[in-house]
């Protein structure tokens, strides 16, 4: 017992800040969701109308939970539950891998396992640690609901569900850590399982059977394959079913048991799935820094492109649903028109979604340039720059590949928009709107690309934090500025809010020339400064 508490204390000490952030964040999400939904969908009539919209266009269910009636709390659970479970699941997955495969790969487990702790106790300590974290998360989520004046049983069930969902993925990640040789491999496997489960539940819900009054959805069989589906089927504040959450708990017990069993039969440092071997010699193409940067950036860029494709598809397909709803239900049409200042509702939806695409594109670009700093800090830039490679050329590769990542991300969104608009009456119009908006966002996102490059040349250590902070600040100012009541000039500081957009049949250029000027100046400045910049290797 003593060994276990020692290891447990060490885990809590190492994680307290991270866990505080995760658990606090999840609680804050529940709390903010409660007050936000109360403001936006204040009346039962509004909630019933929105649920009816959802039933008409089940694609929305990919990103939401299971409709369980128009009651105030049940409606919030519909909006939030998948994300509460997702927070708990991410927290638990990273926690599990960090203390098992992560320690093992870094050689720390070897030190610990050579003491009286042995091979099994560290894993058991990680399990206990993960259970404690999820119990605390569950209690605080319940507390957030209770503090918002929700009924007790539903509140406790909501907290219990979030915790059980988290525990399932604690089990998944513990098992992944046994299967894969590296913590990176284990984390990716766990996250893949998480993402696939999320969408399996969503697709299963979308394919479900709506009730006659269009307020409830009966999940299809597909949903029952996913822990997210079990969690959503507890229907807190509606039917208050506890047994689906027990499925999550059972899955945790099975996965964690399997992980402990595998732990006892394998050698330290070994894995059940042998690591894939790489190529003995590089492909012919891998012979320049351009090829190297492409290789480094391609994986993450594909991720951003997939996200952008989805956002693009929603931008056109959702707009049509909004119109359908409008013709079926005049009350909803009035409400939606009030929400949007634009006369043309569908065009407004395209513009809003492409602002999000711009954000994804900016992330793709910033991440690519931030790799220059990672290469430098990690030490792999030094041998490359000691070969006949120009400093400026080296940085330019990151900037150019980053720009290509931005263009590809926006192009993926346009493709999505085109696919979403297929078969619509006004599909051609919406597609051309998407085309204009996509190009506008290429320019806006490029501003972040060159700003990150400038930071890299002036203050290398700040490249990664400052690059991402700029993107975040632009989102806050640009997307939420009008909502927060910030003055217009502050909102307009965000490249996203001055990018060219379609307006009727015209193109509103807005700040295009300013954006282009910023990109040109930034690119020139970073290349000029790079001429005089020496290698800044140390942390």
């Amino acid at each position, binding site marked *: 017992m003593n060994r276990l508490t020692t290891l447990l204390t060490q885990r809590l000490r190492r994680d307290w800040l991270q866990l505080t952030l995760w658990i606090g964040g999840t609680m804050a999400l529940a709390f903010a969701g409660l007050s936000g939904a109360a403001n936006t969908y204040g009346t039962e009539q509004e909630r019933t109308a929105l649920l009816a919209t959802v039933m008409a266009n089940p694609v929305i269910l990919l990103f939401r939970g299971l409709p369980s009636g128009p009651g105030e709390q049940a409606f919030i659970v519909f909006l939030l539950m998948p994300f509460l479970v997702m927070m708990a699941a991410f927290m638990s997955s990273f926690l599990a891998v960090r203390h098992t495969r992560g320690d093992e790969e870094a050689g720390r487990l070897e030190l610990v396992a050579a003491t009286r702790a042995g091979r099994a106790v560290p894993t058991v300590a990680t399990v206990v640690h993960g259970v404690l974290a999820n119990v605390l998360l569950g209690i605080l989520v319940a507390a957030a609901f209770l503090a918002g004046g929700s009924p007790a049983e539903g509140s406790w069930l909501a907290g219990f569900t979030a915790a059980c969902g988290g525990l399932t993925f604690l089990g998944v990640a513990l098992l992944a850590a046994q299967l894969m040789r590296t913590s990176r491999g284990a984390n990716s496997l766990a996250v893949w399982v998480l993402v696939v489960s999320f969408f399996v539940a969503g697709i299963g819900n979308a394919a479900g059977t709506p009730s006659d009054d269009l307020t409830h959805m009966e999940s299809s069989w597909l949903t029952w394959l996913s822990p997210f589906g079990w969690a959503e089927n507890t229907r807190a504040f509606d039917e208050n079913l506890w047994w689906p959450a027990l499925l999550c708990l059972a899955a945790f017990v099975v996965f964690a048991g399997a992980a402990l069993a595998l732990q006892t039969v394998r050698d330290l440092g070994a894995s059940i799935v042998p690591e894939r071997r790489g190529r003995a010699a590089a492909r012919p193409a891998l012979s320049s820094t351009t090829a190297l940067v492409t290789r480094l950036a391609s994986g993450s860029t594909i991720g951003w492109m997939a996200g952008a494709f989805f956002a693009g598809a929603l931008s056109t397909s959702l707009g049509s649903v909004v119109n359908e709803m409008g013709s079926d239900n005049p009350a909803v049409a009035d409400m939606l028109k009030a929400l949007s200042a634009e006369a043309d509702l569908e065009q407004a939806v395209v513009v809003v979604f492409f602002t999000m695409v711009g954000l994804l594109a900016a992330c793709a670009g910033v991440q690519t340039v931030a790799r220059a700093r990672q290469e430098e800090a990690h*030490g792999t830039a030094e041998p490359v720059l000691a070969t006949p490679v120009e400093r400026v050329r080296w940085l330019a590769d990151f900037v150019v590949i980053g720009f290509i990542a931005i263009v590809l991300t926006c192009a993926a969104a346009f493709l999505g928009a085109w696919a979403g608009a297929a078969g619509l009456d006004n599909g051609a119009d919406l597609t051309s709107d998407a085309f204009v908006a996509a190009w506008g966002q290429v320019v806006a996102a490029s501003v972040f690309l060159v700003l990150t490059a400038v930071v890299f040349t002036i203050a290398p250590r700040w490249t990664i934090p400052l690059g991402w902070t700029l993107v975040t600040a632009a989102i806050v100012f640009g997307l939420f500025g009008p909502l927060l009541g910030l003055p217009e000039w502050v909102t307009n500081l965000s490249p996203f809010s001055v990018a060219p957009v379609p307006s009727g049949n015209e193109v509103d250029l807005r700040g295009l020339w300013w954006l282009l000027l910023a990109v040109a100046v930034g690119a020139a400045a970073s290349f000029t400064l790079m001429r005089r910049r020496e290698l800044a290797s140390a942390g």
Partner: protein
Amino acid sequence: MSTVIVTSGLTKHYGRVHALDGLDLTVEEGQVHGFLGPNGAGKSTTIRVLLGLARKTGGEASVFGLQPWRDAVKIHRRVAYIPGDVSVWPNLSGGEAIDLLTRLRGASRHDKTYLDEKARLLEAFQFDPRKKGRAYSKGNRQKVALIAAFAVPADLYILDEPTSGLDPLMDVMFRREVARVHAAGATVLLSSHILSEVEQLCDRVSIIRAGRIVESGTLADMRHLTRTEVSFEGTDAAPVAALAAAHDALVEDGRVRFTVDSDQVTGVLPELSRLGVEGLRVAPPSLEELFLRHYGDDLAALEGNGR
């Protein structure tokens, strides 16, 4: 014979820290030049300045008569480099990393000589090129840099503590490679704190301390300046103490020990023969002693702290 590397009064400041403080280093063509000093003495900083990866604060530096910062790329065309702390890309295999680095240095994948040379080195260093970078130990990461450096011929090899993490067998292979490129006429700057390595490989040595060169020359020259230790079996130091050339005579563990200026050794031998000593041992100064002469006070300070 022409000069490959020259620095004079070279300085490099990082804020208030003077990493290089008036460094004068000369490396002639065809030399294997040992660059000796403990961690933090300025070895890696010197190398980074020579490669144009860091900019000098003051003084002069030239490589092949070119200025390192301005003509970095021209210099790099003729240089093979092994960094002090080798990192590899986590998602590239060792073989891919080697190919990338050599191709950046101009190797062609159709070049039979390169392919043969790479195959020979992979074999010699017992290196598995198919593992992913993150799976390599320190020694194996070092091998990536070694193979990439030696697989393509260069005029100047700059090696920053190249054998750290290698086992003794691989050390032998490394020394063979240095001997091979030396025989081919290349110049080698070998930074190290492993004295036996420098003693075996280098024909000239520069000792760096706190950003300055404190001693530079051939090992023979440097030995000349120090005393040789002589000892034999015995319990009485008096006859030896009477010799004019002998210094610091004493008895220790049943042996008489004393030191002689290195150029006086032959003069002392007839005297010892007359005394009929047994178990005679004449030890020329090791590089370690030369080194400790310059770092003796540091050592004393460390021992003082330990007490």
